[in-house]
């Protein structure tokens, strides 16, 4: 099974890339280590969205809510309870997945745009609660200075922790992507009626995809807390959700690794453009318009189209 999934040719560059990332932190300045770690967290989030958006064809408009739920759960367990650390690590993604199950259970009964609308309203509901429940979440102030155990105290340690979790999640996502379940999901995206006709339970597959995706979003939320040591209601706000949406599109949402590239580009742009001007969203908007007009397949999708004949990208391709 694994031989079919990971063929050697595409496996080597990925391993090399991983090793480069492993030896980077001691060499590069602290600031860059931090930026790369932010990229890791954001790309995990974008990839988790793409499981439902790109592979499942569902308009998951409020994915950020689950990210925030994961982050808040982890933060609250660390600050409000005396439970051990690992409970928090486990609870973040699990609570996010449970919320995903609840939200998804209502949403999958609706089609396309109404799906997205119901999700925005449910997500906004979660946001409004976190924003107003001062006694629990500190409202719009958020929770800052969340204590971390000594093993994650330095930036380099959290960098390695995030990298390893990200790698595990990516392998997991890739296995799901290539599994019969993943293939069925893509078939549902392309033609739901036909899938229904051959006896696939479309709704249940979509719901399962949402739960899995929200689980990974919860993991990303936990990693965010590990890196930033704070949570605030903006994590649950719909603007962030649309930003993740753009990342998927920017990278190429019909590809597996595309969203990761999209997230990395977005984070890099925000960081380095942000140094020169406060009007960063203006530039994001212009880039988005250029993308819509000239690169509708996304950056990664574009390169895959270009190099298709050479056959070097078969791992990254979907078809």
């Amino acid at each position, binding site marked *: 099974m694994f031989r079919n999934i990971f063929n050697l040719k595409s496996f080597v560059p990925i391993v090399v890339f991983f090793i480069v990332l492993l030896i980077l932190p001691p060499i590069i300045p602290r600031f860059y280590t931090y930026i790369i770690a932010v990229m890791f967290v954001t790309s995990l989030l974008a990839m988790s969205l793409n499981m439902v958006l790109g592979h499942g064809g569902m308009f998951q408009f409020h994915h950020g809510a689950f990210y925030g739920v994961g982050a808040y759960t982890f933060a609250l367990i660390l600050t409000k309870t005396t439970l051990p650390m690992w409970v928090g690590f486990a609870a973040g993604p699990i609570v996010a997945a449970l919320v995903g199950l609840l939200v998804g259970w209502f949403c999958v009964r609706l089609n396309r745009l109404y799906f997205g609308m119901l999700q925005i*309203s449910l997500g906004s*509901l979660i946001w409004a609660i976190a924003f107003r429940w001062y006694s629990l979440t500190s409202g719009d102030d958020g929770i800052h200075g969340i204590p971390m155990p000594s093993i994650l105290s330095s930036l380099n340690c959290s960098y390695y922790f995030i990298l390893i979790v990200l790698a595990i999640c990516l392998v997991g996502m890739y296995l799901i992507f290539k599994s019969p379940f993943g293939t069925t999901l893509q078939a549902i995206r392309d033609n739901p009626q036909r899938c229904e006709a051959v006896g696939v339970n479309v709704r249940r597959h979509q719901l399962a995809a949402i739960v899995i995706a929200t689980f990974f979003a919860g993991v990303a939320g936990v990693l965010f807390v590990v890196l930033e040591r704070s949570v605030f209601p903006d994590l649950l706000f719909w603007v962030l959700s*649309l930003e993740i*949406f753009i990342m998927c599109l920017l990278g190429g949402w019909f590809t597996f690794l595309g969203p990761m590239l999209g997230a990395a580009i977005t984070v890099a742009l925000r960081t380095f453009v942000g140094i020169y001007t406060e009007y960063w969203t*203006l530039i994001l908007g*212009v880039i988005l318009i250029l993308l*819509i007009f000239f690169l509708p397949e996304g950056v990664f999708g574009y390169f895959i189209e270009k190099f298709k004949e050479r056959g070097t990208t078969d791992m990254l391709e979907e078809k």
Partner: protein
Amino acid sequence: MDIGQAFTFAALGSQFLVGLSRAMILFVVCSGMSFVLGVLRVPNIAHGSLYMIGAFSAYSIFTLFGQSSTGFWLALFLAPLVVALVSLIAERALFCHLYEREHLMLLLFTFALMLILGDLVKLIWGAEYRSIMAPPFLRGSISIFGSPFPRYNLFLLIIGPIVAIGLWLFTNKTKIGKISRAAAVDREMVGAVGINVSWVFAGAFVIGCYLAGLGGALVAPTVSVTIGMDHDIIIEAFLIVTIGGLGNMWGTLVGSLIFGLTQSFGVLFWPQFAIVFPYVAVVVILIWRPTGMLKSVW
């Protein structure tokens, strides 16, 4: 707040009027969004930004005329036209080239427009808080049900139905309105009888955005005009349009009323979570009636 005092008839009555006037503002903004959605089938995410531009240009026009009551009326008249002009430029320069493309791309274009317009507002007007004064006879408050009620809100209660009736007359009685309704139902057929669909879309888009600007100019005296207004209104508008039935103007009115009233009664019952109530209402409605309360034009 003392419970016994909170639930008096007077308190309920005045909260009802507050909610009603909030609903009128929401209706003016959302009817524009609903109109665009009905004809172009695109939820215009930039709608909130246009509303914000309406409020800011109203402020500028108001200041230009020495903050007089003439300035206020001119602002109310001209600010929506400024917004309509901005939307016309955006539509003719960029948006109209995308009509043949995938639906999601149109949606994302409006999001890009929101990002750009939001920052442009920051660039032009800055991040300070601004405010507009209504003319003297609309200032202050009068006594209704024994509790004070702002006069300006009464003015809003009059404007809302005027906009609703005007829009109804426009879509049902004028030729352009009828064409736009036809384009909403079957755009190929409208093209086949020799009507330039692209310009119909442009017209619908501009009218929708005009209403956003009008909403912004109307709301300006009641709130502090600042960046971030767009983020607050757009999700509300989205949800109102959805629970009403996509593109259905009367549905939008019902949705606005539900949103405005649940919010204002929420303040009475549980002030801390007042912003939660409208979302709960929306969730309940969408679960009960997944495609909105009234018939969608889609």
